[in-house]
């Protein structure tokens, strides 16, 4: 079985078990829609899968290989969208996007990515003049940059990516995700329901995390 697999994955935050014994299996070309109440561990799971947080126990496999064997290779295959938009207010949209593209060794021609999220007219505008939704579009355009590059990330970890997006932008995001999946990519998307879920429903599986109270939950 290829793709992403986790075995008995557990995470502890501040002496509290967030989730434990989590078994996941996601095939290439499929997305996993993660839902669950606030505090059920969606973001923690994303961070563990990205390698930002160590798992308390269990392990994660990609294409049949334990990711802890080569953390650098794992980081190279992850595209992570968190809650915050890692953009600098004094830099323009192009400068922000280009910096991340170059640092990650991706294609530094970022105009197509801006087009993909319909913010090409803002290319030379500093981020401080952007609305929250426009910032989110620009953050998501990082995914498109990876997609347009030769060896872009194969594992997308999107933590509530549709926050603050208008319906048009949600469609652009859905199209970007579907293109990634059709390219044998894997995506894990945390969500509280909504249009994005419906748009990619045919390529997605669902998982609901339960809030862990006593420590035993999955």
């Amino acid at each position, binding site marked *: 079985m290829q793709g992403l697999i986790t075995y008995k994955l557990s995470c502890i935050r501040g002496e509290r078990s967030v989730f434990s014994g989590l078994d996941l299996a996601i095939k290439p070309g499929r997305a996993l829609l993660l839902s669950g109440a606030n505090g059920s561990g969606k973001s923690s799971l994303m961070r563990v899968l990205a390698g*930002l947080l160590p798992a308390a126990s269990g392990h994660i496999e990609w294409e049949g290989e334990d990711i802890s064997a080569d953390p650098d290779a794992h*980081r190279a295959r992850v595209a992570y969208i968190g809650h915050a938009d890692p953009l600098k207010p*004094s830099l323009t949209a192009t400068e922000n996007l280009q910096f991340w593209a170059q640092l990650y060794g991706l294609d530094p021609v970022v105009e197509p990515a801006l087009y993909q999220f319909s913010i090409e007219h803002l290319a030379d505008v500093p981020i401080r003049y952007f609305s929250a939704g426009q910032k989110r579009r620009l953050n998501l355009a990082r995914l498109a940059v990876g997609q347009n590059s030769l060896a872009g990330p194969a594992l997308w970890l999107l933590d509530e990516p549709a926050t603050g997006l208008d319906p048009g932008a949600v469609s652009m995001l859905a199209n970007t995700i579907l293109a990634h999946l059709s390219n044998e990519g894997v995506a894990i998307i945390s969500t509280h329901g909504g249009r994005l879920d419906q748009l990619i429903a045919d390529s997605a599986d669902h998982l609901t995390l339960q809030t862990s109270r006593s420590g035993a939950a999955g």
Partner: protein
Amino acid sequence: MIGLILLIRRELKLALRGGTDAVMAVVFFVLAAVLFPFGLGADPAMLPRIGGGIIWVVALLAAMLSLERMYANDHEDGSLDLLYLSPVALGTLALAKALAHWLTTGVLLLIAAPILALLYNLPASAFGALALSMLLGTPILSLVGGIGAALTLGARRGGVLLALLILPLYVPVLIFGAGAIDGAVAGRPIGPALLVLSGFLLAALALAPWATAAALRQAIE
């Protein structure tokens, strides 16, 4: 190496566009040093004796002003997560941040220092010692300061904690930096003090990025 250059370029661009932060340190440096003679009296025989010490103390405090923000912005807006996930090692990031901090504060202090030396009536023979001790000492302030900035990430009242953590580590730089200038004023050889400062700088270059990276790793978790 490409990562290092990319990161330094970004930091400098942010500092130039952000404006105030970098200028604030050098303005503080000049203003604070100018105020001392008003309190102590402008005795032309006393000023050269205390000048070296005062310039160095004020330089330490000025360098600390902008330390707190070194990683805080990247931590708050999620950039630190992405920097960690990038192919560039955290140690390289730490080195780039420290070098950029030095370029935007240490170098400005270095340029402003001769003006203060004139105000303190330092003899011409002490100018070389001042410039060399600042050139060797200010990068240490940025490198060691980076450890403190990374350790206090996410801490409440991080600024106070940062000062408590870092100032004791700055004391050796102060002693040998001011010592070199005092030596020059008194006509003693300045070589030994500068050699010790060079040693500190090499140790800081080797160890500080590594320690900063460990602290950043902790902050990301």
